């Protein structure tokens, strides 16, 4: 039996009270509840406080460049699709620097889980606006308030044909554990956007601010299989913020559609130069 101890990692460098702690706990609990051994799991992370997550637990880890966790996760998954691959990063990492990769990973429906720690601020660089900061939010780089509209990852994902779109809250760990498990069980690209306060730099979107607003979709009559109502739900932001599975559907994954991978993972294929004589014949 796998236990939380199997996933125990070294000391963290996060601020006391950071939402990252409960996300880390939720990830570990989800893996334990799925009875996955650490060696079966690969976490590919980006740069930012969120990107440090795999260092504070035990699993295969590829801590990538800022914004590039998703393409590196895709490469690793296609090389060895037997690995359980999770990509982890923050809102700046995934929705700013890596925005293009995020969109194309959704279109491909590659079978990975993408957990985004969304705290609406840049923490590692000490308090600048992020793609998800609310309009008007005053930060060090936006002294007059943020001018742009906030990036809406859920609505974007649904519009692009994502097959699993969800939102969790760092203050609801049990709920988040279930979301991560469902995301990992889902075949295809699964987004788990996690609302998370930055206790040091975001004085607006605090624990209390989120607690007042979030409500769980589970237990309501909300139907997460209807793409149009899901889109409406994804736009809901302000006094009430829904958490849970916003949208779920089924579509063949990218990896399932590659004929090569039906023969087993690439990493297990033999290298045989002599089997390539036929290519040379074509040039004769």
């Amino acid at each position: 039996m796998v236990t939380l101890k199997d996933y125990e990692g070294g000391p963290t460098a996060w601020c006391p009270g950071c939402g990252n702690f409960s996300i880390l706990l939720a990830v570990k609990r989800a893996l334990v509840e799925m009875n996955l051994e650490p060696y079966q799991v690969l976490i590919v992370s980006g740069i930012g406080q969120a990107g440090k997550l795999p260092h504070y637990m035990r699993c295969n880890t590829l801590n990538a460049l800022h914004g590039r966790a998703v393409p590196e996760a895709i490469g690793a998954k296609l090389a060895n699709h037997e690995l359980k691959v999770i990509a982890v990063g923050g809102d700046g990492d995934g929705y700013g620097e890596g925005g293009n990769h995020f969109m194309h990973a959704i279109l491909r429906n590659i079978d990975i889980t993408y957990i985004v720690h969304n705290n609406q601020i840049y923490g590692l660089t000490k308090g600048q606006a992020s793609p998800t900061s609310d309009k008007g939010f005053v930060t060090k780089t936006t002294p007059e308030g943020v001018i742009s509209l906030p990036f809406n990852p859920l609505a974007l994902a649904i519009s692009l044909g994502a097959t699993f779109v969800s939102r969790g809250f760092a203050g609801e760990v049990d709920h988040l554990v279930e979301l991560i498990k469902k995301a990992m069980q889902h075949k295809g690209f699964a987004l788990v956007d996690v609302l998370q306060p930055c206790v040091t730099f975001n004085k607006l979107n605090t624990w209390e601010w989120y607690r007042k607003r979030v409500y769980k979709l589970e237990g309501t009559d909300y139907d997460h299989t209807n793409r149009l109502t899901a889109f409406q739900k994804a736009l809901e932001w302000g006094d009430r913020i829904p958490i849970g599975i916003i949208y779920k559907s089924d579509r063949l994954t990218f990896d399932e559609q590659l004929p090569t991978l039906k023969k087993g993972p690439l990493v297990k294929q033999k290298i045989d130069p002599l089997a390539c004589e036929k290519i040379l014949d074509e040039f004769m």
Partner: protein
Amino acid sequence: MTIDFTFKIGGEAGQGLQSIGYALSKAFAKGGLYVFLNQDYESRIRGGHTFVQVRVRNEPVYTLSEEVNMLIALNKETIDLHKTELVKGGAIIFDGEKIPIKAEDNCYSVPLEKLALEKGGSKIMINTVATGAAMGMLDYDFNLLADVLSEEFGRKGKDVVESNVKAARAGYDYAKENYRGKYDFTIRPLGSSKRMFLNGSEAIATGAIVAGCKFMAGYPMTPTSLILEFFASKARDYNLVFVQSEDELAAINMVIGAGYAGVRAMTATAGDGFALMVEGLGQAGMTETPIVAVVGQRPGPAVGLPTRTSQADLLFMIGAGNDEFPRAVFTPSTIEDAFWLTIKAFNIAEKYQIPVIILIDQHLADSYRTVDRFDLSKVKIERGEMLSEEQIKAMGPYNYKRHQFTESGVSPRAIPGTPGCLVVTDADEHNEEGHIIEDAETRTKMVLKRLRKFEGVKKEIEPPKIYGPEDAKITLIGWGSTYGAIREAVDTLRKDGIDVNMLYINVVWPFPKDEVSLVLSKAEMSFVIENNATGQLAYLIKSETGREVNEKILKFDGRPFSPTHIVKEVKKKVKG
């Protein structure tokens, strides 16, 4: 009999010039002749001016010739632009019914369009008729051309093959009946051949597949798109995965992901596409992930002349990335070199867990040559230190350290997913386990560990080769695709009594400083010959050996060197 015959086929983009050049070349190659084909095209899909040159010889050929023996003109502009390149007695083949010019003695009109419609049933066949006409003019064996057409169009069905053969035959017969006698140059097959005919891109893509590269990601970009396309076309038969990525950043990062997971992986792009990949190159260096990147040079900066050739990214490749980490930069000179160095690139990348760059240019990527069939029994696959499941088991559960300090700097690899081991690595500075660190001591040790690997890489590199006598008074130095032009220039200059040889560098990093220094110490005079404006190799030689190269022959107009050009420039300096 000596044959050294150059065709120039000119027209607009979209007229099928390449298929004429390719069919002619293949037919000659099948007849045991040696062929070199190069392409000159614009960054457009239709219109403009574009040409293909095919040079046929009865002995090995490595480069193009400036002297044209037969101009196949599909438009008037081709005649206007290129008729002065014709040798004495050189012929122009054109469609007099479509291109109204005052026919001089050397102009041979063939009703290409009329024959295409009559015999082939479509205007599309104009280029096939022209191919036939060229062969008829030279009285070459038509059956060899028919074989080529059958192979080329076989996939499209019997009818397409038949109409193409008919169209070619019509052109062949027309030219032969009307002009043989008046035009008497003849090319005959030398016998049957076992040679291949392929270009640099195909050689690299084939080399990658042979080397066991299973994963490629890329964003299409001239001049390396063909590498991506070729690899993708073989995916089903050779168990490969190709991903067309959303951009170059994604491409190199996907390749890093695959390399981390234990698969040989590669990307291909152009110099300015590589500019986007630079951060990824650094990550491969930092995480010690083996990757291979093909970079096809074209003139820049920025977009430059997208379809033309250049050698101005040499120093960029050596210096790309923030901070310091070991890498290798290979600069293949020929089709054979492109194939074998690609295989070596994967071996070096995995043995030393570093990024390896294969730096080519448009001229090498797009130019075809007849070469001896590659002997696949000579291919060696060296994957470096890779721990087996048993070895990992013997270490005890979760004791594996991805970045373990070793004397060679190389830490044995393990495949993520192996029971009892975790493969942890980080783009941040990290400890032996691969976890993020801040302390000065570990940082210093890690930098030195990574750099130590370079000492091993240096020992793997073969010294650069010399063409011609070792003790020649004058040395011409080159790298990359200029090999053929310099080689032929050496032959010509020696015939003219100038004591010259060529030093050829096909691995520029690690730089072969001792060998280059020795050659320069012996030469009375030295030249670098480069497709750039500042002499980047000369700069590198100076900084690595302290020796100054005397003269630079530089060309940065986007066009490849010809031997004639080099001969002329060398003579200018040598004679006065």
